[in-house]
């Protein structure tokens, strides 16, 4: 494929032969712009050249378009599950998500995380740690239901086999080598 990785016509390479450089002033003072005629083949070129055609310019605009008129107070959604609320808010929002309420050890960690503001790094780091604990809880939950998770299937091994057989074989070889090396080292250690 022809790309613009090779630069012409104004390609400029430094030739550090002694102290000789090309001269910056030999290059155009202003960027070179194509004419409208040169751009005429581009489908739709300039349709929104006029800023009036750009729907998000200016960025803030009142009154709002395309939605019903704003109201003073929205109906409050009832709280039927535990929802963690940012300390940077005065209270819960009128509308909120109720999926996957906090539970288990990861839920305890998330509750602690929400004692800190979003501005505090500890808030996010603890949430990331809770996410990893939650993964283990997910496997345990599957096993408790009598379901052995098909981890390779969940990672898309079928697609990998279909579209990247060589990559899959390489990954399997590397994984085998790592596991084999670890097993050998552990056996060696036990012998000592």
């Amino acid at each position, binding site marked *: *494929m022809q*790309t*613009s*990785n090779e630069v012409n016509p104004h390609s400029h390479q430094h030739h550090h032969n002694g102290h000789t450089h090309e001269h*910056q002033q030999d290059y155009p003072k202003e*960027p070179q*712009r*194509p004419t409208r005629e040169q*751009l005429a083949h*581009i489908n*739709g*070129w*300039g349709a*929104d*050249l006029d800023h009036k055609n*750009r*729907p*998000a*310019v200016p*960025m*803030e605009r*009142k009154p709002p*378009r*395309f939605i*019903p008129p*704003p*109201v003073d107070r*929205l*109906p409050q959604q009832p709280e039927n599950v535990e*929802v*963690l*609320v*940012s300390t940077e*808010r005065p209270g819960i*929002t*009128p*509308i*909120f*998500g109720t*999926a*996957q309420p906090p539970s288990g050890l990861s839920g305890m960690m*998330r509750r602690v995380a*929400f004692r800190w503001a*979003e501005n505090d*790094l500890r808030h*996010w780091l603890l*949430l990331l740690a*809770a*996410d990893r604990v*939650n993964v283990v809880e*997910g*496997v345990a939950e599957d096993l408790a239901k009598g379901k052995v998770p098909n*981890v390779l*299937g*969940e*990672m*898309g091994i*079928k697609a990998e086999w*279909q*579209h990247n057989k060589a990559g899959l074989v390489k990954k399997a070889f590397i994984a085998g080598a790592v596991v084999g090396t670890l097993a050998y080292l552990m056996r060696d250690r036990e012998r000592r």
Partner: protein
Amino acid sequence: MLAMNYRGPYRVRADHKPDPVIEHPGDAIVRVLRSCICGSDLHLYHGMVPDTRVGHTFGHEFVGEVVDIGSGVQNLKVGDRVLVPFNLFCGSCFFCERELYGNCHNTNAQATAVGGIYGYSHTAGGYDGGQAEYVRVPMADVGPYVIPDDIHIEDAVLLTDAVPTGYQAAEMGDIAEGDTVVVFGAGPVGIFAAKSAWLMGAGRVIVVDEVEYRLEFVKRFAQCEVVNFREVNDMAEHIKKMTDWMGADVTIDCVGGDAAGSIAQTLTGRLMKMQAGASTVLHWAINSVRKGGNVSIVGVYGPTFNAVPIGNALNKGLTLRMNQASVKRHLPRLIEHIRAGRLNPKEIITHRIPLEEVADAYHIFSSKLDECIKPVLIPPSAREVTAVKASAQQ
């Protein structure tokens, strides 16, 4: 119902979950007809977004049919086919009153820095998303947009995020006639940012990526120049060579925290999670733009911090603009572009995959297998309807 189910980094599956219910008078329940996997879903899939809980259903790009409405819904009725903007917004808060629909203050209890987003972790509100057969759609009078009869359902699903985000990325670049615009990332958003740059009168559009088949596609689809960053010595130096040593007038980051191209950034941002993702592209965007130029950011980064050359931005007098797209304000104009043939979103769809095979769909998209650009998931119930309609027509 059948729904995508997150089990941990790089692990998802299709599972049966309880159907969603009306929880607020403004809610609707939508039966999903098509949902996409977005590049930003991959940040969740890779375990980079804090508070992504096991059991969560992703999906913020979906269209469907209204099957139930709450007592307060007046503008939608059962049977309407709607496209649902990826942002949840109330229409009444300080920010919605200013058309900042991507920054609503009333739909995400768990964070103030981000508005509510369907299926995008609890950091974005804890709403299950549209990679499912059914989805709860709050504030149904405000967000959803009834799909006009002449707009194809696959064009509509791309109007929920990828097209308006790409368009707004170009818009935030404040492109003037003849400007040189560099778009980093040849994924769906980058492709539409490149197309939109031409609509706004750019003189040159250059797209940068490392994936050859994507560069080939965008070069043809968006009639632009392309650069493979793996084949150049230094990205900023190369852009300057291409622009008479001035730098681009506008640079656009359509990649975010999953960027490749810098060992140090990849190590600290993606692997060790010491930053909120790898800020390689933002670094390039700042250093490749000319003095006094504009940098537009729509690539997604996490909530903590990133190492970027902010001193260079100061010394060069740059304007940095960034936001989540306010999807709804763009829809009328973007539909005009589709009707006029200036935009043809559905042409970027490369894979139509049953929802049951969601694990393979994520892997194909994440690993860029089979020349994937945009995968669309089709729930079993949507396939049944299509089959019934087809047999009725025979």
